[in-house]
């Protein structure tokens, strides 16, 4: 049951701004948006730039904005979009454009390097390893599901609208910091850095990041809020502050 669909795909032009280019193409049951982009690339626009890898929602490469919504192209089935209207596909807007649907996400890799690395305590089980209870790592495992698609960074208004890239690490790296902070083996303390260097205070918990997360990580509730609580407990709790004066 092939039908014709209309896709408006963002194309960049050398030394000019980008524009939407309209393509008409045959689509069939079960296709995802990435399939359509590939079909257009193979048949109509061989130089159309798109970043992708696994095509199964596991690598987080094909992030884009589909009809204005930040999504993975490989996990957006055509049955989820209205094909009676043209479907728009454009790059993530919170990052500098490279070409067409591809953006420069290198800022994210630089940010990660600035977060103190995992520092485990000395192994304390008789066999020279560690013991951990499953219930103590369930929360950390939730954070470690992150596929680094950066859709949460894309949708975060602190980055997208206010361009605070130099002062705020964004939801992805708050999740990363939470994964380290809540790892039962870790001995490093990142609370001061979260407050001063990583700008956790900028987040005003609008939960937009949680809504777009393709891995359904409870970014705000399980990662950011508990980290904010740690910062508050240490620096803004009146009793702690009083105690610190007398230390």
């Amino acid at each position: 049951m092939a039908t014709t669909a209309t896709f408006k795909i963002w194309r960049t032009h050398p030394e000019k701004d980008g524009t939407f280019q309209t393509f008409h193409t045959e689509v069939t049951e079960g296709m995802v948006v990435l399939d359509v982009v590939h079909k257009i690339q193979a048949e109509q626009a061989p130089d159309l730039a798109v970043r992708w890898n696994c095509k199964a929602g596991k690598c987080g490469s094909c992030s884009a904005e589909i009809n204005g919504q930040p999504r993975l192209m490989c996990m957006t089935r055509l049955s989820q979009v209205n094909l009676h209207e043209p479907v728009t596909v454009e790059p993530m807007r919170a990052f500098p454009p490279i070409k067409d649907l591809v953006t420069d996400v290198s800022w994210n890799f630089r940010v990660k390097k600035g977060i103190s690395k995992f520092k485990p305590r000395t192994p304390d089980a008789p066999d020279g390893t560690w013991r951990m209870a499953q219930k103590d790592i369930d929360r950390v495992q939730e954070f470690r599901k992150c596929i680094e698609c950066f859709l949460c960074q894309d949708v975060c208004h602190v980055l997208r609208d206010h361009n605070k890239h130099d002062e705020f690490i964004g939801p992805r790296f708050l999740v990363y910091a939470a994964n380290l902070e809540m790892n039962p083996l870790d001995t490093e303390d990142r609370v001061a850095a979260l407050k001063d260097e990583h700008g956790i205070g900028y987040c005003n918990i609008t939960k937009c990041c949680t809504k777009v997360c393709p891995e359904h990580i409870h970014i705000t509730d399980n990662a950011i809020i508990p980290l904010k609580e740690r910062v508050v407990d240490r620096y803004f709790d009146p009793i702690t502050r009083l105690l610190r004066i007398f230390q």
Partner: protein
Amino acid sequence: MAVYQSYSYDVLIIGAGGAGLRAAIEAASSGVSVGLICKSLLGKAHTVMAEGGMAAAMANNDDRDSWRVHFADTMRGGQYVNNWRMAELHAKEAPDRVRELEGWGAVFDRTPDGRINQRNFGGHRYPRLAHVGDRTGLELIRTLQDHAVYTGMTVHMEHTVIDLILDNGRAAGVLTYDRERGRFHVFNAKAIVLATGGVGRAYKITSNSWEGTGDGHALAYRAGAELIDMEFIQFHPTGMVWPPSVRGILVTEGVRGEGGVLKNSEGRRFMFDDIPDNYKPQTASDPEEGWRYTQGDKSARRPPELLTRDHVARCINREVKAGRGSPHGGVFLDIAWIKEKLKDSDTHIKRKLPSMYHQFKELADLDITKEPMEVGPTTHYIMGGIRVDADSQMSTIPGLFAAGECASGINGANRLGGNSLSDLIVFGKRAGEYASAWAKEHPAPRVSDVLVESAMQASLAPFERGDSGENPYKVQADLQESMQALVGIVRTENEMRQALMRIADLKERAARVGVSGHREYHAGWHTALDLRNLLTVSEAIARSAIERKESRGGHFREDYPDKVAEFSTINVAVRQGAGDVMEIGRIPIPPIPNHLKQVIEEQKS
């Protein structure tokens, strides 16, 4: 003369999946300068797709396990044409490599007493796979990536290697282009490690991403290295078959490890109908015993769904051909049935197989806790690859090392599930270690400008032909069709000769491909450059498969359906001969030492 930027490192690693990252970490921590080149962004390599786990005889769940059992399982799975030394090193070193990951931040699922939990998998006698739900590959790559970035290496993302350049027969450097700008770069290095993964994109139905184009295999081959075992391709028995756009995407063996069963359209568990003799003593005699095995009963034997992948894939193929398949040309994989056995089975399934639940729900609109999945074989892994020394991972070219899927030896004729991730970390580490030692002992080689210049000119030729040339996507698709139809799960000499004729024809077409536009992030140009590698590995697969006139592991010949003694002692090898002709040869497998032979014998019962 085209312009390029140049770099120089002690050790250069090509590929940033599990093996490449592990090699890079090892080399960087030994104090040499390390450059890491990857075709995608860091952390996106195909390793993320690995689901089930990494095999290591830590004996956390069953204290009968040891390296001896793991070694014997690996050799049996590989039908005894493995490099026994690699299988030995792998079995002995995997436990330390897994434990080390925990010290770098990996968070594995736990046993009730708090140790790393290990699960059952096909061909492994005891529960042996350290895992994180069904996303173990993501855990591995993220752990290595996050550890690597603090070791001082330089990562060059979205670079594709065009050619490997030698200096007097020794590995000297590579020419790359970066996708972002389409510019050339030349890397000079004292030692080079290839860790480029597999060749799945030579086939139409594959679990591999666009990156699996046999780059390392082909680069090494063109530079004069030997490839062995190229006929041994693993068709994973369970790939998705519907909808068409996701055909081939992997469905983890973990589904069967957790109690999932295979049924045909008549509702029959056909895997009980065909159990190979050498696996009979270890296989359950009825469904009840199989179920008990999946739930950790140590007195039970494993269900036939957990026989080796080559066998399960052929059984599925047979059911489909006999007209007993599912509506979209596969068979049924049912995990939902366990509701008869377990209260709260849907929560259990979602907890044990979260990615599978998610994948089917989102891509096929199917709830695996309620309905059976449709699955069929998909091209998954190549056992064959660059011939390496077992201990050092050095290829037949001095200074050129290889690790992971692009190297060959450990798996023999068939790889056991879970042995890939452990292979990556065991031999990734070794490659990094020995490459670094080599770099410390040798002066920097010279990369010839003449060779660089001619490689750059050749790679730009598609732009000169422009839109009037052949469409590279079309040539790629035609190759994939040919390999799928003629060099697939069931092979015959006649069909493979046809495949070679088509490959010859496709080579001519590939020499005429054209693209237009600018070089920045140009997928068409990239596909044009990939074709050379895909055609090389396809020819190597077909020629090796013709040479091995028997059936063994991942290589099944309808015209020679049995194992033949003559082929049990050799590996088929290919190398580039004069005038670009692919030469084929046989390399005798060194006799296995007595102490290892004994280990195999004692595990046969």
